[in-house]
């Protein structure tokens, strides 16, 4: 594999980690959704590039799904939900942005230190791709725990999913990648429909899922 192909693949994968960091410090819902659309765009570019250099045309389907569903349809739907629920500017981080970013840097370092030594046999392409993918997954988890609001948790989950798609396409020749990405898209679509249909806001006056404890009936 020539050097340029590898470099471009790393550019996209590294770009995805960067966009994951951008997700961490957004303080407005609109900005968060736009950055997520960018996240999906980068992942679809990365998948399309993998399809090109691996000569695997079926991966173009995965790229198209990522582009169509996650970069266009879901951000539009989320924008509508946010406007309807009137929560454009309410992001309630559990800890400050500074600590979150520091934790994020730590997680990226961790994933590189974990993945690089053990993937020596897996080939150069898969090697860096996997450490980037694990970084994206861990950053997504960090986002899910550092936000209280349901919409930003969903975005965190979808960024985890983008990281998984990056990992799956980086593992050259993995069967069922398209099927898995379709299954994932259904999951994500259901989550978004879930927010919309369940109308968490209407029932609870807030999308803060912290209120769950009140419904447990465990308090005497």
């Amino acid at each position, binding site marked *: 594999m020539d050097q340029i192909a590898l470099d471009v693949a790393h550019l996209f994968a590294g770009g995805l980690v960067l966009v994951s960091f951008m997700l961490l410090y957004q303080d407005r819902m609109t900005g968060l959704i736009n950055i997520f659309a960018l996240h999906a765009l980068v992942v679809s570019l990365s998948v399309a590039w993998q399809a090109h250099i691996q000569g695997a045309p079926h991966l173009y389907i995965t790229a198209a799904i990522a582009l169509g569903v996650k970069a266009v349809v879901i951000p539009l739907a989320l924008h509508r939900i946010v406007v309807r629920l009137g929560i454009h500017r309410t992001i309630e981080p559990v800890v400050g942005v500074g600590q979150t970013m520091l934790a994020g840097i730590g997680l990226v370092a961790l994933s590189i230190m974990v993945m690089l030594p053990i993937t020596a046999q*897996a080939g150069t392409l898969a090697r860096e791709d996997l450490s980037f993918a694990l970084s994206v997954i861990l950053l997504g988890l960090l986002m899910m725990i550092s936000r209280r609001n349901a919409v930003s*948790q969903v975005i965190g*989950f979808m960024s985890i999913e983008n990281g998984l798609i990056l990992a799956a396409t980086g593992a050259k020749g993995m069967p069922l990648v398209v099927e898995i990405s379709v299954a994932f898209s259904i999951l994500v679509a259901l989550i978004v429909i879930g927010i919309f249909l369940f109308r968490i806001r209407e029932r609870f006056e807030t999308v803060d899922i912290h209120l769950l404890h009140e419904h447990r009936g*465990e308090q005497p």
Partner: protein
Amino acid sequence: MIYAILLIPAVAAALLAVLPDDRTSARLNVVASLLTLACALVLLVERPAPGPFLIVDDLNVVFIVLSTLVGFTTSVFSASYIAHELEVGHLTPAYLRFYHAMYQLLMFGMNLALLSNNVGLMWVAVELATLTTVLMVGIYRTPAALEAAWKYFLLGSVGIALALFGTILVYLAARSVLGEGLDAMAWSELVEHAADFDPALLNLSFVFLLLGYGTKVGLVPLHAWLPDAHAEGPTPISAVLSGLLLNVALFAVLRFKSVMAANPLALAPGPLMVSLGLLSVVFASFMLYRRQDIKRLFAYSSIEHMGIVTFAFGMGGTLANFAGLLHMTLHSLTKSAIFFCVGHIAQIKGTQRMADIRGLTASHPVLGWGLALGVVAIAGLPPMGIFMTEFLIVTSTFAREPALAVALGLSLLVAFGALLLRLNGLAFGEPVGSRAPAQASFVPIALHLALVAVAGIWLPPALVAWFQHVAALMK
């Protein structure tokens, strides 16, 4: 036959989604589940050769027969439960149609996960099963039900995402040995060639898989979704969640465990499973004391028992594996029987608060004694079968790790105390609340409890030989 097990639920789900009449659909649900059970029983004698996607082997046949059996009995219970829900107006006919279609889709997902010979396909199937249960947990649309469904959804999705990353790593480990393509994701090939895989990659993948699928097993500290999902959904779903879906997730962990065990250089998977299992048992048995909601009580008891089973499989060895497998089977039967009773009781009393339910043996003798018998079984009293399996697990652990056995035995006692304390309040004393006669289906309850009682007294030699064979295979 192997295709019939998948086709019948799939076709039934499509039919039930369009059938308008609720009586017919409840009956169709029962018939489809019975047919699936019949096909699963055929697999016991006639076993097709493994293909690239589907496989029947000694291990999964146990799970399939158990799963279709409990699926069938639960559909019988569900018919009477749902009729009552429709009567009191908790559910509308449109929701009912949705409910029945989802029930069969759940059966399809679980059977596919158990039968799949491909790690990717199994992942998709577990995801499908998760989604259908999420939708059913939220079906009452009360604030509590929606919140429970949402919590289950988020935690389940994160778990399933971690499991997918682990699956990708397994493929990478296998690819350098088996080459690209379907072979590198097939169980039959993975186990056979696991000795040549890169141990470091396998280690990392197992951590992700254990945490990912472990979330779905309900292992502490990943259990947070489980009590809420059990308490707020319809009771037939609590029964299949506890009785079946947790087993399916555990089955996935066991499959990967056998891959790990086949590689001498890889991390031993046992200690990880033992620690998570023991933690679950200790935590859940103390949590049993403070419950006020009857379904939550038994949900925590499910966490405890899945912990025991994980512990047993983690200890490994033929005896512990045998006990673990039997314990899992008996727990599924007992816990679903308990949920059948609890479902009818909660409907009659109109509440799930244990403080408002008393004196059941006087007001509703059959349900009350059924519940009492179920709780006696689940608490591990002789002569019921669970006493025997718990005894086997504790004694076999004593021989190898006495300290662990003491911890396990003590928490079993703690759980025993909590369950009997609650049972005393529920079943005996002066009855309170409604004394309306139960429109219950007693056959599933009686069948399950009878099987558990018989297992405690006399196990058919054929069954023992079968389970011992499977236990020896699992290493």
